[in-house]
């Protein structure tokens, strides 16, 4: 399943009130020349998300509607886990966004490293008082880019799209790792962890 730029742009336009797509894509790190060329490496980005009701209202439907290339991950099924491993093996050069419950993402990360580089990990937990706590650890650049989006996305599916929209842009493997804690409105579903990764050598 491939992503069409127009569907991603449609999503971004629809998500942010009063925002124009192009600056938003740029602010997310999507190369502007990519918009002209209609085909970019970001279009090959892949989202893995947990096939679980805890992810919120029909994550798969939301992601499918947006047109994001995705694969569901499950801890429960050997075939599904195997399919994920096959995908990772053949995902040369693609960026990877992972979203799931903490145990699942921990397990996925265990299969990624050290041949993939996880540039960002986000822990998204529900707090008392209708707040969502986001604890990021990783490179500064994607962290800053994502931070601006937290209040704009409505649910995990939209967050997945934003995450998968990140390009390697100017991320440098030599950059210092940092942490950032933020609050936002509550997302539906349970506590989640997210990863943004590239195969070693790409970043």
């Amino acid at each position: 399943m491939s992503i069409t730029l127009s569907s991603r742009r449609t999503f971004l336009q629809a998500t942010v009130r009063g925002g124009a797509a192009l600056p938003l894509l740029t602010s997310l790190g999507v190369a502007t020349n990519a918009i002209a060329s209609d085909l970019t490496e970001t279009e090959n980005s892949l989202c893995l998300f947990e096939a679980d009701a805890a992810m919120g209202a029909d994550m798969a439907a939301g992601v499918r509607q947006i047109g994001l290339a995705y694969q569901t991950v499950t801890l429960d099924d050997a075939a599904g886990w195997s399919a994920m491993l096959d995908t990772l093996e053949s995902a040369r050069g693609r960026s990877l966004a992972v979203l799931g419950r903490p145990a699942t993402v921990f397990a996925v990360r265990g299969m990624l490293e050290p041949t993939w580089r996880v540039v960002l990990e986000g822990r998204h937990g529900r707090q008392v008082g209708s707040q969502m706590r986001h604890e990021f650890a990783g490179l500064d650049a994607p962290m800053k880019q994502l931070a601006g989006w937290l209040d704009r996305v409505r649910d995990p599916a939209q967050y997945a799209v934003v995450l998968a929209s990140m390009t390697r842009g100017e991320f440098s493997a030599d950059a210092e790792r940092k942490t950032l804690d933020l609050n936002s409105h509550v997302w539906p579903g349970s506590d989640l962890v997210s990863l943004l990764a590239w195969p070693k050598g790409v970043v």
Partner: protein
Amino acid sequence: MESVLPPGIKREQFAALLADLKKVVGREFVFTDTQWELPAYNDAYLTTPAELHQPSAAVAPANVEELQRVLEVARHYKAPLWTISTGKNFAYGGPAPRKAGYIVLDLKRMNRILEVNEKHGYAVVEPGVSYMDLYRHLQKIGSKLWVDCAAPGWGGVLPNMTEHGVGYTPYGDHVTMQCGMEVMLADGTLVQTGMGALPGSQTNHLYKYGLGPSVDGLFTQSNFGVVTKVGMWLMPEPPGYRPYMITFEKESDLHAITEVLRPLKVNMLIPAVAMTVEMLWEAAVQITRRDYYTGKGPIPDSVRKKMRSDLKIGAWNFYGALYGPPPMMDNTWEVIHDAFASIPGAKFYFDEDRSKDDVAWQYRKKLGAGIPNMTEYNVMNWIPNGAHIDFSPISPVTGADATKQYELIRDRCNKAGFDYCGEFAVGWRDMHHIFCLTFDRNDAKQKARANKLFGDLVDAAAAAGYGEYRTHVDFMDRIAGTYNWNDSALLRMHEKVKDVVDPSGILSPGKMGIWPKSMRKGKA
């Protein structure tokens, strides 16, 4: 994370060592980047500072020839290697080395399934083959052999056996099911044990013992060599499989359950490694703690009762399975049913009695048929930032011992502010009591309490005559120290063996408390 050096090696020597390793395995398979690569060799579930276990590098050979040359380099520089295979031994240290500075010897790339013998029912695998890998392969070739897997299916077939792991089918005692082993000694010598020592042997994976002393056990939970290949017996698909679950209402039923169970196990009416599982383990794979309780300290009884009712589980939950032709299963079930029915409140379930959405039942059902899955990992969702180390004493299969161990752990655990979450894996003559000590890995105070509790449990269990079968890298010396009969004669014997088979002391120094002569004074 700052880079560290192997103990006793200067920076210039380390650079030369790395260059030599790169000549052997290629630049791509020597990992030194502290930001991007080496974190993969940390233990995310540590209760101690990560710096204590930070590797200086990792090296991943692809075959025995490369391994041989890696050992040569290590011997030359006297560099300590820490052997891992799939590196998924979480709760016991994961891929992290015993001490900072070791070079992780990562055998993940040695992942060939060398043989599947359908007629005799075995497979021969290298260290990097996971249960998932073997299962996929068997499916692909249309094999009628079953895998016996660990609960998280990403674990390795070979390393789980060498760590004395157990599974869930009648082939669940993995060491018992191992037959034929290839080991590389520290000096690079490749040894075939048992019948494999006979050139052209026709029975390498059929008869375990060969001629003379049987040495396979010396290479399990040890640092006497690097196991490069093993034969594992695989169970032929039986003509029938009927998993069952029996729930028990009261916490105090553990005594009666275990007493009923013993003759059934000894007489092999329950052939598989059966499980007696406490309710929180059942709950933790499918819900989170805060779904029911947001207070601090152990969960109150009233809340536990509500959980049991909602999830249709007992205070204790027994999982077993019938295997064989249907008439045989019917007869066996009659005996098992009647025996457990003597316990008031026992409820019996087959597959048709449990919901399709019952997470705990569904994954246990798979495990009993050797279908790998990762469901049990959900236990880590129980609390935010969930992590665990497992305290695993061996118990006799008696009600008195099971209860004594349970209370010994539960009381200390509750006092320390943790929930008891545990299970008994029931073998022929023993039970592996697995207490999953779950803590918040971002909470330094909780980690410190967990660490202290673990140590207290080691001491209390030893004082009561119970020893652990496996442990986390942080507790290897302490637990090895409890096996101290006759002035630690066993440990001293291990050390003598170590000095002979690995005089340079390069292989996994400190594994299970066994240190090479050069590091004995420095042991933690």
